[in-house]
């Protein structure tokens, strides 16, 4: 269950980009899942079902607060790239993770869910609300873009 909590937290964080908001979304999503457990039919994995609920809650919070700060790649305040001089990164590993936050939401979530949690593309699609094929495309576009940024 601790594994699911971390997965739920990462999904929330991926959508909201803010630790406190992500904790709120994780809590609300998991409690909502408790209340709606009768709606779980077992035709998808419990984890996928839970993460889809948490993702919906996080998107609701995002709509209410508009809090996620998207930094355009050409934003002067961040340099000419998302890992410009204005961003302090402790290691290459942290650098890759920081770049992930700059991907479009569906690409970001597709990469996160596939890498962090080992979901299949079909399961990724269930969580982000797309087909398996679209989830696969979003994942590969995200990875390709990360590799391009890392070469800059």
């Amino acid at each position, binding site marked *: *269950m*601790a*594994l*699911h*909590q*971390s997965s*739920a*937290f*990462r999904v929330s*964080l991926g959508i909201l980009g803010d*630790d406190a908001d992500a*904790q709120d979304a*994780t*809590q*609300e999503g*998991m*409690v909502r*899942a*408790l*209340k709606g*457990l*009768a709606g*779980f*039919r*077992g035709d998808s*994995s*419990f*984890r996928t079902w839970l993460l889809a609920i948490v993702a919906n809650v996080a998107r609701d919070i995002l709509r209410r607060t508009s809090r996620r700060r998207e930094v355009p790649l050409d934003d002067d305040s961040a340099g000419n790239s998302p890992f410009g001089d204005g961003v302090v990164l402790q290691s*290459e*590993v*942290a650098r*890759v*993770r920081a770049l*992930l936050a700059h991907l479009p939401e569906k690409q970001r979530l597709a*990469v*996160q869910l*596939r*890498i*962090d949690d*080992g979901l299949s*593309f079909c399961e990724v699609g269930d969580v982000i609300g797309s087909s398996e094929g679209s989830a*696969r495309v979003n994942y*590969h576009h995200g*990875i390709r873009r*990360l*590799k391009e940024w*890392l070469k800059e």
Partner: protein
Amino acid sequence: MTCQELVDRLPDWATGRLNDDEGALVAAHVAVCDECSAEADVLHALFHARPEAPAGLAERIARAASVQAEAVPEGVAKRTWRRPAWALSAAAVLVLAVGATLLLRDPQGIEVDSVLEGISFDESQVWIVDDGAVAGAPVLDDLSDEALAALLKELGV
């Protein structure tokens, strides 16, 4: 193995999720392919920098779930609790709410019956709603025994 054949399995290999046989096939390709090797490095870095849920979040969720459970609506009839069919479901929910590590100090080798024995139900949290369903606890009538067993297994019970 070509890059095309490997591309969907590379994430599982880079994060240690492939079995030995499949892993050996991917490793043999990565060893001679700079492009796949570079991508595997990126995936490996992403995986090892993944954030975990903050300490205290599990307790926070458990408290929130408890508050929800205590919010008994007015004007509903209550009845004395007897061991109902949904007890197994309730056990699953409690595990969902507080996490196996909080509910059970030693999650190794735990049987479902022992989980049920460790749970005390507050009668005030169980009541019958107008349609005859038991409220205050989840009802998984449509879930097969196999699906429920899979759910409990996934929850770590």
